[in-house]
């Protein structure tokens, strides 16, 4: 069936900020969809509040709205743009839920917008567990298939839950309806558990509905990725098997593709059921996934759930097979059938086939528990990982070892060094699913545990356990071999051992192993991901390394540029860096280079084989990168390797790559060192006459106290060489300093800086070619200094800085760029205190804010940076039109729109963790609000990040003494807008004395009043408060659970009520609420903003 001609414009909804359970995989899918739709001649209208996405680049849609993804804002966009159709299946649960809300509110009908790619009934059937269960039963009954659901009960009240659990028997699984990433799910082992988990689940579900079901803990878990077209052709794109059995969320499980422990009969039964269910659900066109559990003892198979949309697993499946699910889904949505779409990779065969793999793919999750003290680290059905890495190998062992080292985390790889642990203790630890459990299992094997014991402890399929045994045997053989000859080395490499692991096992350095290996001529070959196990020739160079026979790297005719990506998402290094890498690739390809991407994150746009001329799906370790460089050098000249755009990961390799003779382009490793090493950077600043906060380096408590005495409290302390502010704290007194120092690992230096209280923090992104500085943007933080820049909201252009300030900032930035020797991007953080501009730090690389700045100023900074690194000048880029002919991000006109960036924090995932912001970064993502007025831009940023600000109701205020003066004005503004103000006693007194009526509520510590008056926490839990303002008492960043306010903030997270924790945030929120109340908040596309800005 050909493309539909009755549709001319399509609205695509993105997935919003990166949160746990919904990350850049939806940028990947949305970008593909937008591309397809535009190529097919449709007018594409896009809404996504996340500025760090590729999809929100203005060239991917005709009208790009960086606006909150709420039914209200999307309705405004629909009213303005009048699209013919809405495609809701590529933006995760956010897009699907928004589409359902628009349908239910009658908006789609009112504006005559057709839902394509899914229909409302199918969404209901897929997501409503009761309906889904009926569908599974019907399929079994009518089509004679072996399919069933877990025994279960749907409950809407706690009484129903208790009765149902009694009937099913404990443990029971609690699953709330319509939540994403398993929010609110869990296992209840007794009634106390049940009340806690089901209570939260009933709250989390938009339909106040939870499902209780029989426990299938420990069963084998599988997932099939399915595609259907409107002619009812169905294909299975990929099967995925979870190594962690049922009980651990798929997003937190180590998974493998294809499934490895099913016979054809079992697999085909699964396939039949998947297809029948999808037909019955009525998924119109597109991709969906369906999950199964199999009892390892009997083979009894249970259908768990299906998602009628593209998902994280579909991104994984696309990367694992070379079959681009989102791209094909977009084509199916506009009317094509699978057999009309060519397979991109072979070009000669159609998309109506099932990929077959001659390699193994392993995905491993990456966690960030170190950022969330107090969080429960047990892995459950509630997803907690923040990112993932994928690896490909010709055997499971090779793929697994590559995947583990792709995590780039200490102790993520298997190890045979160090003392052997206690077998019983290790086995006991294996019983509880945790981050790094496979390594614990490997250590248990090292300590003598066998397959049967491990199976008893973990229920991991014995086949996988045997693979761990195999690796242990190989490691022992490697250790025992008298000489590390070619046979021994080759054998180890075939099993995926890195040079570092081999060195560790043999007691020699990694470099020695590599030299020996190279001397023996032992290098990996690169095979192609070709969708067909080599049955047909692949035309797309999507490659992975393996120690196998034939190299498939094609020859190139243009000079090549390698771009090193940023690896698995983590807090502090996420989609923003992928954005920069992708931009560099697009631009350098346009400029005539052959672009070669190296990355191992399956969620990203950079690992789409369409993004670069060549893609290497490889770990970003020195060994793996050196081999890629070598392989590329064998097939043509390599003009440069870019390490500056992928964040700390590639930057950390810069010096070693250069030492190995690799042409690192852009800022040199020596210059990077100048900026990163304190002493050296201090000299750069001194030469330029720029002040920095006073500081010192301490190894002991005594030294730290001496420094603090000299520079004065408060001080900012942190271990040297950290990312994302790990382990940072602001310390106000000797006692806290002593505690902090005592908690540090001995021997590691701690940096002690004067903390500039009540300073304005400023972030700058700039471009430098050695001659000219292009100031990309100057961002003013909304929160005062002391909160990690990644977690603070900021405004661009800066809202309180004058032209003179900007001049000083420009001069300082230029001096640093010249002093360090930057070629490309530079990010500098300043603090303005008492009229003095202090330099906090400089990073000679792409920063997290590059995409935000690029979008806010309509200038492609990362593209320009890539060109500068390859030798272009700012003047040339101005002449080309890539940069404005005159002026820059520091000279924006006074009427320029104001963009506000707000961070999104994952506190709803980590119950029990305090939500107060501090110097350690904890946000997973960001949104942008953009408008002519700051208040509205801020309100939009809040709506995009957390849900809309309330415009009426009750506001509860409780602030620390130092904030009392600053809160009066904004709280009065709230009262004037009609809010009822509630406050704790101290705060209420101050307000009353200043003419603001505030009702006193009881603190949690005071307990209920004599007349049964509830405490504030009770009020919040009862849903009687609409807005919470609570700034922490005591020193920020050191707020242990016992500190005042903790219960209030926890209750706010539990009930999903907006909670402002800084007084600056309060002022901005008050301005935003005022703006909303005052008049209509409009929507404006980036293209319109750009026209206004650049004419």
């Amino acid at each position, binding site marked *: 069936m050909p493309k539909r001609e009755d549709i001319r414009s399509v609205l695509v909804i993105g997935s919003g900020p990166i949160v746990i359970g919904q990350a850049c995989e939806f940028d990947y899918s949305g970008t593909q969809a937008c591309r397809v739709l535009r190529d097919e001649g449709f007018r594409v209208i896009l809404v996504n509040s996340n500025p760090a996405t590729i999809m929100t680049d203005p060239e991917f849609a005709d009208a790009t709205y960086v606006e909150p993804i709420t039914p209200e804002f999307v309705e405004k966009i629909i009213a303005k743009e009048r699209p013919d159709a809405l495609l809701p299946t590529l933006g995760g649960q956010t897009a699907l839920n928004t589409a359902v809300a628009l349908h239910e509110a009658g908006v789609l009908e009112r504006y005559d917008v057709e839902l394509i790619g899914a229909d409302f009934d199918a969404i209901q059937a897929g997501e409503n567990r009761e309906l889904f269960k009926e569908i599974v039963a019907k399929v079994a009954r009518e089509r004679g298939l072996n399919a069933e659901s877990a025994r279960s009960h749907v409950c809407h009240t706690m009484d129903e839950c208790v009765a149902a659990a009694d009937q099913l028997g404990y443990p029971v699984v609690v699953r709330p309806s319509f939540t994403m990433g398993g929010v609110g799910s869990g296992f209840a082992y007794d009634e106390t558990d049940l009340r806690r988990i089901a209570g939260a689940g009933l709250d989390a579900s938009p339909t106040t509905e939870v499902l209780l079901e029989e426990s299938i803990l420990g069963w084998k878990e599988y997932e099939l990725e399915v595609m259907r077209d409107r002619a009812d052709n169905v294909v299975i794109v990929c099967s995925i098997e979870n190594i962690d059995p049922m009980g651990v969320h798929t997003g937190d499980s180590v998974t493998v593709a294809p499934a490895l422990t*099913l*016979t054809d009969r079992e697999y085909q039964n699964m396939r*039949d059921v998947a297809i029948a269910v999808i037909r019955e659900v009525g998924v119109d066109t597109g991709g969906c996934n369906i999950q199964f559990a199999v009892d390892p003892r009997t083979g009894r198979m249970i259908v768990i759930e299906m998602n009628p949309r593209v998902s994280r697993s579909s991104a994984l499946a696309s990367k694992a097979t070379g079959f681009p699910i989102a791209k094909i889904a977009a084509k199916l949505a506009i009317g094509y059938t699978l057999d009309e779409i060519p397979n991109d990779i072979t070009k000669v065969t159609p998309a109506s086939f099932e990929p077959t793999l001659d390699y*193994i793919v392993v995905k491993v999750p990456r966690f960030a528990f170190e950022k969330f003290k107090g969080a429960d680290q047990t892995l459950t059905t509630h997803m907690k990982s923040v990112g993932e890495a994928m690896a490909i190998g010709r055997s499971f062992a090779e793929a697994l070892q590559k995947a583990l080292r792709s995590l780039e985390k200490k102790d993520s790889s298997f190890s045979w060094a160090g003392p052997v642990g206690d077998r019983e203790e290790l086995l006991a630890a294996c019983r509880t699913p945790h981050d790094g459990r496979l390594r614990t299992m490997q250590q248990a094997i090292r300590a003598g545990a066998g397959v049967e014991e491990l199976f008893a402890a973990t229920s991991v399929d014995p086949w996988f356990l*045997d693979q761990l045994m195999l690796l242990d045997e190989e490691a022992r053989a490697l250790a025992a071999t008298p000489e590390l000859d070619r046979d021994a080395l080759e054998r180890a490499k075939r099993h995926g051992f890195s040079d570092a692991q081999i060195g560790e096992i043999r007691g020699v350095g990694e470099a020695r192993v590599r030299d020996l290996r190279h001397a023996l001529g032992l290098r990996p070959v690169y*095979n192609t991901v070709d969708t067909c*196990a080599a*049955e047909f020739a692949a035309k797309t160079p999507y490659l992975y390394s393996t120690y196998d026979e034939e190299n498939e790297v094609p020859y190139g005719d243009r000079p090549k540029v390698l771009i090193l990506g940023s690896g698995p998402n983590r807090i502090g290094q996420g989609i923003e860096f992928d954005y920069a890498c992708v931009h560099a690739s697009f631009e350098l390809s346009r400029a005539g280079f052959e672009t070669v991407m190296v990355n191992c994150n399956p969620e990203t746009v950079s690992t789409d084989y369409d993004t670069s001329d060549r893609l290497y799906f490889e770990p970003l370790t020195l060994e793996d990168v050196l081999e890629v460089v070598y392989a590329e050098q064998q097939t043509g000249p390599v003009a440069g390797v870019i390490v500056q755009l992928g964040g700390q990961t590639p930057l950390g390799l810069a010096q070693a790559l250069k030492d190995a003779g690799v042409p690192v382009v852009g800022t040199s490793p020596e210059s990077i060192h100048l900026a990163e090493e304190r002493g050296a950077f201090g000299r750069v600043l001194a030469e330029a006459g720029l002040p920095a906060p006073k500081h010192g380096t301490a190894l002991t408590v005594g030294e730290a106290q001496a420094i603090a005495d000299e520079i004065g409290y408060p001080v900012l302390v942190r271990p040297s060489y950290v990312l994302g502010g790990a382990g940072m704290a602001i310390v106000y007194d000797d006692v806290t300093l002593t505690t902090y120092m005592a908690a540090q690992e001995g021997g590691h230096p701690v940096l002690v800086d004067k903390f500039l209280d009540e300073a304005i923090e400023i972030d700058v992104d700039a471009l430098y070619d050695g001659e000219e500085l292009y100031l990309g943007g100057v961002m003013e933080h909304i929160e005062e200094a002391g909160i990690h820049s990644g977690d603070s909201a900021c405004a661009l252009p800066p809202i309180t800085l004058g032209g003179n300030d900007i001049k000083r900032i420009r001069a300082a930035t230029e001096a640093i760029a010249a002093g360090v020797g930057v070629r490309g991007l530079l990010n500098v953080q300043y603090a303005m205190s008492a009229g003095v501009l202090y330099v906090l730090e400089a990073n000679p690389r792409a920063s997290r804010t590059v995409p935000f700045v690029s979008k806010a100023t309509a200038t492609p900074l990362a593209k320009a940076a890539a060109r500068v690194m390859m030798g272009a000048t700012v003047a040339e880029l101005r002449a080309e039109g890539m940069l404005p002919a005159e002026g820059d991000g520091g000279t924006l006109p006074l009427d320029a729109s104001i963009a506000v960036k707000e961070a999104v924090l994952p506190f709803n995932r980590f119950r029990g963790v305090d939500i107060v912001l501090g110097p350690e970064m904890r946000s997973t993502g960001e949104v942008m609000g953009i408008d002519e007025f700051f208040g509205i831009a801020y309100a939009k940023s809040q709506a995009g990040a957390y849900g809309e600000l309330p415009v009426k109701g009750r506001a509860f205020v409780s602030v620390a003494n130092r904030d009392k003066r600053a809160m009066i004005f904004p709280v009065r503004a709230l009262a004037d807008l009609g809010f009822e103000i509630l406050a704790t006693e101290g705060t209420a007194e101050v307000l009353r004395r200043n003419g603001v009526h505030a009702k006193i509520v009881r603190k949690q510590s005071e307990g209920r009043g004599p007349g049964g008056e509830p405490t504030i926490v009770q009020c919040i839990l009862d849903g009687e408060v609409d807005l919470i303002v609570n700034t922490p008492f005591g020193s920020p960043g050191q707020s242990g659970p016992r500190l005042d306010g903790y219960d209030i903030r926890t209750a706010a997270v539990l009930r999903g009520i907006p909670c402002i924790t800084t007084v600056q945030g309060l002022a901005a929120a008050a301005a935003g609420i005022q703006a909303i109340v005052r008049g209509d908040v409009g929507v404006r596309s980036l293209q319109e903003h750009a026209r206004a800005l650049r004419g």
Partner: protein
Amino acid sequence: MSNAVLVLEDGRVFHGTPYGAEGETFGEMVFNTGMTGYQETLTDPSYHRQIVAMTAPHIGNTGVNDEDPESGRVWVAGYVVREPSRVVSNWRADRSLDDYLKEQGVVGIAIPGTRALTRHLRERGAMRAGIFSSPSEPLEALTERVRQAPSMTGAALAAEVATAEPYVVEAIGAKRFTVAAVDLGIKGMTPHRMAERGCEVHVLPATATYEDIMAVRPDGVFFSNGPGDPATADVTALRQVLEGGTPFFGICFGNQLFGRALGLSTYKLRYGHRGVNQPVRDVRTGKVEISAHNHGFAVEAPLDGPFDTPYGPAEVSHVNLNDRCVEGLRLLDGRAFSVQYHPEAAAGPHDAAYLFDEFCEVMTRAQA
């Protein structure tokens, strides 16, 4: 360790370790791209005299059970894998694949370069090969011996794999039809799929004459899959069936014989279709089925519309979307049809199972 070799007739050699039985074996070197179903593949008589390489790296993980074989023995001449499983993990498994191959005397080899081998065959075409578990001669001599092995072109093999004596597969539930199934290398799942639909299946030897076929008073006649070059087969009995008007259904080799009976020619594909992911379009409905394939030969027929045959006009009913190869034929009056691929699956997807229903419908119409 790495002492076994796989030698191709063009001189390419792959080194590896012995797997299964030790010794030496010769056959046509082919590759199978299925990720599941090694047990069904090994026991499929169509693989007689072929050395099969699996492109999926891990083979043997689920062991071997008594339920899944497609015949009473392993038929492949040799087996090439990359990562043989060291353990068996499946609730239905009875023994390991390694033991099974040893017990069946099947010589195999594990080599790292299964992908290189596949690429080689893709570019150069299927060719003769030999596996030598512990060769004592130089490689040149081994290559020479491989070149002495018989070629697949011109090989008449059906009689070697087919049943010597007729036997009956009873209908499951009420009997609705009698089917005479000529065994040219039939897989166990095929009569089972018919039996499930109420067919009493009389499986006859490959040498069955028209008289033998009609002696069971069939409602329909079936010609099975099987090994070898279809050009060597005698289609007299099939022509008589078509003349007599009894409903006919053929699979794989049976499709090639149907084509030859209609006056079409057959040819050898460069490297064949062997796997479970091939897209085939049903020309009448436009629908695409993902299907199981195992064929090295194909029928040459006009793709652009019906053509005349001695039994009335016929058409190509199914086309492979990867290479436009003919995958099905039918007489326009509907009484006789066949497909080149495997609707009985085993291994493979069940998308084409409707063809057994169609056979039953044709028989129902003929009964009326």
